């Protein structure tokens, strides 16, 4: 490995078996999970996108009728599933107990349910257990059932907590079946060759702060290998530097009369302000982190649909390649102009 590689910490996300996307609510984790899954499937990989106990969004993005607790093929080679704690527990418990009646007597007991509901992290443990199980699954010929599993993780806070659980269990107890399971899961999520945790963020004050804190926490406490920091929905610059300068000069002296030209200038200034703000936050992010950065522009489009997912998938493919080539933060292609 050259010194240059060391600097950029190049990661090939398409080389991993388990991709976990995390970040604050509303930053586009689900979109990104869909796009990574699609990009990998287009490489010919068999991919499973796992949503965890949320309202399903994959069906709409891929135009599939329904995605529930069993994997559904939403595109060639691309499957989606919406795991609930109940479905994961039942699947896991039946695997062990073999008897449905015993499962029902124990896990559907009123008091047991009451306890299971309040034990922090239990649901998350079931989710991770499910991911581990799918990663380890092999067909009759010994081939992996999935080439890649993409987890659309819960929002930060929950997101990190969820990855802490195996380590918490292995530090709390020293043996037993739960220890063994937790240790197996821990080995998977901490394995640099198989797993990458992407931090998804918007380029705004709070999400960037949170991403920087999250990265530090992951490195310090979690030891889950980090992949990319993904900056989503970036306003690209519409105005060249000379135009921007001109715009500001005109705006400074133009009568503030609320006329159409005044309003067009206001809109232009708004764009300049936001882009400048983003630039400062990107700089902060790059100063604080050593991760490669993927940048997804905001696509001005009436409907957020499959076409947009496909466009983001192309960007991921292109930027992943650039990162492997030694770039730390490749530029995205500018989005197409709006149709008027």
């Amino acid at each position, binding site marked *: 490995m050259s010194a240059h590689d060391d600097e950029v910490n190049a990661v090939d996300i398409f080389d991993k078996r388990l991709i976990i996307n995390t970040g604050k609510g509303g930053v586009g984790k689900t979109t990104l999970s869909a796009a990574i899954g699609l990009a990998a499937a287009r490489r010919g990989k068999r991919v499973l996108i796992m949503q965890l106990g949320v309202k399903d969004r994959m069906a709409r993005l891929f135009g599939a009728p329904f995605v529930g607790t069993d994997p559904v093929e939403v595109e060639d080679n691309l499957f989606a599933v919406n795991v609930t704690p109940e479905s994961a527990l039942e699947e896991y418990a039946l695997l062990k107990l073999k008897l449905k009646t015993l499962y029902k007597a124990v896990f559907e007991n009123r008091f047991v349910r009451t306890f299971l509901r309040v034990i922090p992290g239990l649901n998350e443990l079931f989710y991770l257990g499910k991911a581990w199980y799918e990663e380890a699954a092999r067909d009759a010929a010994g081939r992996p059932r999935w080439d890649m599993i993409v987890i659309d993780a819960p*929002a930060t806070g929950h997101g990190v907590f969820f990855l802490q659980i195996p380590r918490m269990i292995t530090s709390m*107890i020293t043996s037993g079946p739960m220890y063994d399971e937790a240790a197996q899961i821990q080995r998977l999520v901490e394995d640099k060759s198989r797993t990458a945790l992407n931090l998804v963020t918007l380029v705004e004050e709070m999400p960037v702060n949170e991403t920087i804190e999250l990265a530090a926490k992951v490195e310090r406490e979690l030891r889950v290998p980090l992949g990319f920091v993904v900056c989503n929905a970036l306003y690209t610059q519409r105005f060249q530097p000379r135009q921007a300068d001109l715009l500001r000069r005109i705006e400074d002296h133009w009568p503030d009369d609320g006329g159409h030209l005044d309003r067009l200038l206001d809109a232009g200034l708004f764009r300049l302000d936001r882009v400048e703000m983003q630039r400062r936050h990107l700089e902060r992010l790059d100063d604080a982190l050593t991760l490669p950065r993927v940048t997804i522009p905001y696509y001005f489009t009436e409907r957020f649909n499959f076409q947009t997912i496909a466009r983001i998938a192309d960007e991921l493919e292109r930027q992943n390649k650039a990162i492997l080539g030694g770039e730390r933060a490749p530029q995205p292609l500018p989005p197409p102009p709006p149709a008027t």
Partner: protein
Amino acid sequence: MTTSPLDDLIRDKKIVVCVGSGGVGKTTTSAVLALHAALHGRKVLVLTIDPARRLANSLGVQALDNDERPIPIHDFPADDAPPEQRGQLFAMMLDMKRSFDRVVERYAPDDATRDKILKNKLYKYFSTGLAGTQEYSAMERLHSIYTEGDYDLIIMDTPPTVHALDFLDAPIRMAEAVESSALQWLYKPSVAAGKFGFGLFNMGSSYVLKTISRFTGGEMLNQLGDFLVNFNAMFEGFGTRARQVREILSSNHTLFLVVTSPDPATVDEARYFRDRLHEERIPFGGFLVNRVHKPYVPRDILRTDGATIAQRFRDWATHNPHLDLASDDAALDTLGDQLVQNAAEFQILADLDAQTLEALRERTHNEVFIQEVPFFNTDIHSLQGLDRVRRHLFNLPLPPEHRSAEPHHAPG
């Protein structure tokens, strides 16, 4: 003085709870609601869960912590609130870990039990874990402030939750789980009385526990038992307080506001929050929608030829020769087109947001209060920033320096 719908909603409330998905500006909105009520004469506490220093700074203090802290508002520039009629503002950040420690310190029967609990490995895990402990801590804190404090109004920011109303449900769920009936079922009475050892479990539950231990192993179960036994002494009050808070939150002294952004997925969640509040008979005040894009110009202007605009700038420049625009002739040529395309992009965002909010109005039969706050050109992290949000929330006139930075006053 005229008041806004939001003023009317909040006026006679004692608790206002802001709920909503993560990343929609709940914390800022909570701070602004508190600021406004304090400016208008009330003694207000804002209980935030966000450790962001910028918010503290924007309120004019260095940092917030687990104690109630006065926020100076006397010099705050607000022409709608005469200084002599202003109230007081306090802010507090809820530190989840420390709050739960407080609960233990307060309710443990003796020092030995307290220390045992605080040192227990499972406790450390529970108290920082998220399935209910955050919400439980928040609820406990609200209970003690409400019953012991002398605030006119408490504004409560809530943790972002995956499941809509964990904030309401989790404390009760937790109380149910640790109350005696469930415990008695699991443990022998001797255990519940604090004697711990072999023969821990009740015969009636033994096959269940035996089965569960096939998953967890005996060590984990014993750790759990140890934890529960030590915790047992504190259990009784848990349920009582959780239910008291629930009662307070359901009374007409309380108002829930759902904070959202115009993103369709977020609005879906917001609507779900509202339905759940309705089912639970919790007083719901309306939706506060942050980050709404507004159009800048009437739609037909977006078809203007860029060259026409460039020409108007040139004409104007001849009357303002000191600006020296002519030297940038090439940039000026393309600026017109860029300005139109830029406005067209914002028009798309404005259309999307308008559609989403229209659908929200329809689905709530136009009966629900919806207040929009525009998407700003900067982050909100100063008193001026908070004031800007405040003016939008409470329909106050904008100061001139903000007017041009906002699409809000677009004609048409």
